[in-house]
């Protein structure tokens, strides 16, 4: 027992104290850098995706507003078209033209005995 203790004491005095071995600092720093870089990358990706979603929504919104404006424009154009058709129909009415012609130009309807028909040779 004493031998054991002596041996231990001798050993203690003989060997100088050495610091404990730790994991190398260098590989730990590289791993952290990689993690940070990866995080930034994903943040970028997510930000881009979010920006895309927002941009798409804005585009859809704009298109909807444009669609609504075009719809109104179409309705207005249809209204104008119908109004013009009505005016054209009134103006192109043969009885109206005949009345105007009779009143302003003295037009007289030809009678059947004033009209000559020709039979064309084939």
């Amino acid at each position, binding site marked *: 027992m004493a031998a054991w203790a002596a041996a231990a004491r001798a050993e203690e005095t003989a060997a100088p104290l050495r610091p404990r071995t730790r994991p190398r600092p260098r590989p730990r720093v590289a791993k952290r850098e990689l993690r940070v870089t990866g995080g930034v990358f994903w943040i970028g990706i997510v930000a881009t995706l979010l920006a895309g979603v927002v941009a798409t929504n804005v585009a859809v919104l704009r298109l909807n*507003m444009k669609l609504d404006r075009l719809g109104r424009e179409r*309705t207005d154009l249809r209204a104008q078209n119908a*109004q013009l*058709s009505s005016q054209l*129909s009134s103006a192109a009415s043969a*009885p109206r033209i005949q009345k105007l012609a009779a009143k302003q130009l003295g037009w007289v309807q030809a*009678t*059947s005995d004033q009209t000559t*028909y020709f039979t064309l040779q084939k």
Partner: protein
Amino acid sequence: MNRLVNRRIRLFLATLALVFGGLPLRGTWLQTVRADSLSSLAQIQQRETVTIPAGRGTLFDRSGLELALGEQATTVYANPMQITNPHRAALAVERTLGVNADQILPALANRTRGFVYVARQADPAQAAALQRLKLPGFGFYPEERRDYPQRSVAAQVLGYVGTDGNGLSGLELQFDHELAGRPGKETITKDPSGQVIDVQNQIPEVPGRDVYLTLDHTIQANAEEVLRETVRKWAAKSASAIVLDPRTGAILAMAVQPGFNANSFPSTPSDLQRNRTVTDTYEPGSTFKLVTVAGALSERIVSPRTRFRLPYSLHVADRVIHDAEKRGIVNYSVAQILAHSSNIGAITLAEMLGRTRLSSWITKFGFGRTTGIDFPGESPGIVLPSDKWSGSTIGNVPIGQGIAVTPVQMAAAYAAIANRGVWSRPHLVDHVAGGARPSLNHRRLVSPKIAKQLMTMLKDVVAEGTGQFAAVPGYQVAGKTGTAQKPDSHGGYATGRYVASFVGIVPASRPRFVILVAVDEPRGAIWGGTVAAPAFQQIARFDLQYLEVPPDAAPGK
């Protein structure tokens, strides 16, 4: 001192803890318990389901001219509960829409109501001017307004459309299903300023189909003009005319006077709105003798040359019937009976034919039942079945008394004779856009030989009989006059009230038109040959010229 400060800090912290502890609780409450009701409230505020009106189809005449078409209009409504200043609002309405402010003010100031119409189907530009004022409580939505650009032309035939866009009479009613289309719907989401930011669940509108008529607006307008002049000249109650193509049964004109502007139908008396040529009946008088003669010829009882010794008057049961003009005994052929419109001659033929056969010929010619014309409210007329005839019926039905027909039935009967004995269903619609042409529905009434014989006799009526005022220079005209006393409400006949009519076929050699003119209660003259035949002549002369129908023989040749 320190203690006091510490207490205050603790109190502040406790308050903060309470506030921040309450917020999640409130959030949870709103997100769970109140979620549904708040969500639906938000939807009501932001979302709106809008009806997209389907454009009503257009009615075209045979030349492609619009007779009725839809115009965009804006209906203006208001919620009086939201109107802050009714006086200002009423003045703005008067200034922009032209609605009397005094009239609209009570409605706008009535805060018990949540909805009032300010103007139905207003002019879109005027409505837009009101909308620009951004008055609180006013709303706008698009609607279609029916417009009749030819105004009074064919007004009774076209009918009209109600403010809700449904056909209420005439062709607008008959073809409402085709013309109406199907409205669309869309759900929109709006931002707080009312700007549409999203469109969901869009059901597109299906526009109505166009309807192409057989009417010709020029022939129609001319017929109306001639009738207007006839009514004025004879101080008549009304007049009707039909211009029909006997080859197909297509109606080129269907005129009734007095008329009205189709754009102002609500203010027009309903009496004027009726298309009397289809819905009203009259006792045809002598124009009906065609049926009696056609029956007698077809049954081979007589030929056109068979002669009869005819007295001036005749006893039939308890009645004494006489011819229109006083005369002695005459010896008339069947052709002359028609040419001189002899009542005694027609009754003699009817007695030879017998009540059963005469009745069957009346039915065969289409009297007593509708023609099937594509127009609503057609009257079948009034025809007594032969088993209900009294002893004197054989004395009045063969001469067109005691029977009621519609002008369109009579025109169709003459058209059958003009069409070599084949009857065609009279029709107003040529086709509906995207649809097939309707079947013409022909049926033979008399043989071509009998039709030819009848045409010759009808030509004599115009050449030397009662219808000489119907003659058109250069063309052969066949036709028959009619003068019928109007029945009164007591079962007898009214004194001095007559219907003067003429039905003619022109050119008789190659018939293109059957024209019927009936004048109700003319004054000064009552005879069909005097009152209606000249109107026929004017209509025929115009139509022949307009459709470039060559004359039968060149003048002087």
